[in-house]
């Protein structure tokens, strides 16, 4: 099979129809189509408006706490004995993950569009918490759809959302996880077309979401680029991030896409192993298809029915991936590895013990591969890992796997 040709400018995508090569698009019911066009136009106007960008930057600085530090992880570096490992500290953002970058951008857009009701889907609850947070800040009602299974395994985040004034709707249809929460949010949007803004939490779904969420998350990569140039005087050899829907990964990758010397490495959740069917690795274990408004790699059976994803991490437990990643994979610009539940738990503990940082179990998937990457690059090299979130929300899950009760 021939890979599609590499473009001259990777940042020129998506095209006008929302495509990254074969991937992306707008596969939504007709009821939503006019809204999707309206959103596209509103986002284009906001993107080009310096006042919008200035307002966003103000909130990112004073409310979110940006820029986040780029931290040299000396003890992890010594432990693996390869390239220098830097951590981009997105877990230090307000609410504890990168999700707030996107939520802040989209809530300002929703206000600009005159929308008065916000809906969101969430898996781990991090995007739900970030959505509830910005809705509280701007006084907008917030309804968060969350799979009933996830409500059960992420109780502290459900409580946080409630404290922030959001209503959490437990979704029992289908497999009662993130994909079903997204179905239910779409059903809400189809039903409440006039006043409702759908705040999607990852760089997936119908155009313009993959582009818009990427743009809002690209602040991570822009800062990283400037910070590494300042401390190391050079670009990194590799950038590593975990991939659920792909927003933290595309956010840190995007400003490096045209620097072909920088390896871009995404890590998908291998769950109980890629030799089982209990994983969440859309690229490594799926094939292209259409779900939630976009053409992308999906976990599915022979008949095109979507299959359930499995991961210890609720935030990676999704059968799809953003369309830009599918394209970067096909053209060979990015590489997608996997990490199992157990490898991620080990990486979680190692990072806690060596660096005094509890990483989100999602981010721990990237940490599980960082040793291999650092050794591959070798001494004298530099690698950056996107530490997308903090792990306080995961201590109960980790304890359960260690056979402990807390």
């Amino acid at each position, binding site marked *: 099979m021939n890979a599609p040709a590499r473009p001259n400018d990777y940042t020129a995508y998506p095209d006008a129809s929302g495509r990254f090569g074969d991937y992306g698009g707008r596969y939504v019911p007709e009821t939503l*189509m006019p809204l999707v066009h309206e959103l596209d136009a509103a986002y284009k106007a906001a993107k080009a408006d310096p006042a919008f960008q200035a307002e966003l930057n103000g909130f990112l600085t004073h409310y979110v706490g940006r820029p986040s530090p780029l931290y040299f992880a000396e003890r992890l570096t010594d432990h693996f004995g390869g390239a220098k490992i830097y951590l981009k500290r997105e877990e230090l953002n307000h609410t504890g993950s990168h999700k707030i970058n996107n939520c802040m951008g989209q809530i300002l857009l929703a206000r600009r569009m005159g929308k008065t009701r916000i809906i969101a889907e969430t898996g781990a609850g991090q995007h739900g918490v970030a959505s509830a947070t910005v809705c509280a800040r701007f006084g907008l009602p917030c309804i968060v759809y969350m799979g009933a299974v996830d409500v059960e395994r992420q109780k502290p985040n459900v409580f946080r959302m409630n404290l922030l004034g959001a209503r959490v709707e437990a979704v029992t249809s289908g497999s009662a996880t993130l994909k079903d929460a997204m179905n239910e949010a779409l*059903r809400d949007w189809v039903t409440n077309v006039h006043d409702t803004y759908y705040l999607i939490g990852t760089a997936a779904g119908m155009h313009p979401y993959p582009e818009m969420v990427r743009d809002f998350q690209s602040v991570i990569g822009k800062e990283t680029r400037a910070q590494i140039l300042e401390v190391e005087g050079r670009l990194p050899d590799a950038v590593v991030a975990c991939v659920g829907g792909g927003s933290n990964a595309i956010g840190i990758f995007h400003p490096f896409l045209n620097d072909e010397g920088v390896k871009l490495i995404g890590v998908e959740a291998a769950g109980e192993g890629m030799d089982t069917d209990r994983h969440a690795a859309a690229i490594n274990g799926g094939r292209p298809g259409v779900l939630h408004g976009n053409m992308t790699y999906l976990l599915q059976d022979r*008949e095109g029915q979507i299959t359930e994803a499995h991961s210890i991490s609720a935030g990676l437990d999704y059968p799809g991936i953003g369309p830009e990643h599918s394209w970067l994979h096909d053209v060979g610009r990015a590489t997608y590895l996997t990490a199992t539940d157990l490898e991620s738990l080990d990486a979680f503990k190692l990072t806690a013990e060596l660096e005094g940082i509890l990483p989100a179990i999602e981010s721990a998937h990237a940490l599980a591969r960082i040793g291999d990457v650092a050794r591959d690059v070798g001494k004298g090299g530099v690698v950056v890992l996107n530490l997308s979130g903090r792990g306080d929300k995961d201590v109960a899950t980790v304890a359960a796997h260690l056979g402990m009760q807390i």
Partner: protein
Amino acid sequence: MTKARIDARFAALKTEGRAAFVAYVMAGDPDAATALKILKGLPAAGADIIELGFPFSDPMAEGPPIQRAAQRALAKGMTLSGTLELARAFREGDQDTPIIMMGYTNPLVTWGYDAFARDAAAAGIDGIIVVDLPPEEADPLADALDANQMSLIRLATPTTDDARLPVVINRTSGFVYYVSVAGVTGVKEADAATVAPHVARVRKASGLPVAVGFGIKTPERAGAIAEVADAVVVGSALVDEVAEAVEMNEDVTSRVLSKVASLAKAVRLARQGLTTV
């Protein structure tokens, strides 16, 4: 044969001076054998056109009744090829009743549009509605259907304004399906007075018959819509009959067909009411 079958049916109904009754059935619900019995009984019970749902795991525009119908069908192993099998078996005994498939994109992508269109036409399918395939993404499927004389039937909705209507109608044939409410299937109720001007608008812009569906559950409502539309579609209320019959251990086929008969009767009587006014 295929597009022609839809056109012939609407032409015949026009001379009768009444609207069509369109019955939606989910393939394989509650199982393949029963679904076939229901299909075979539909014309005699009064269905003029059959909408044959093919199940998908993640039906984003469906309310709980059709979501559950798809789950029941998938649990019994229904597939796209199984759906075509049902159509083929139905066609052996009925050459005139149009069958329109209705479902989601991904099973079609998996099959391949060209192969699907060829196989569906061979099975006696006349057209297809793909809920999550708007005009912006539909050209490849439309090409495949054209090559097999099948209709791509589009949805127009309350959010489809006059500026967008031509986009929706372009490459549509057979009829246009007007979604009477902004929402998922089987939740909100359609209102004939609200729907009427939209039906007229879509009919005028397309020159095609306009079917109305999504919020019609009772014979009264079906009758009211039949006075203003060219066809009345009922789905959720029929799959709910399947669910209830299964739960109460009743005969599924007779329960569904008697509901079809009462709805079809209301549609037939509607225009008579009109002419006596």
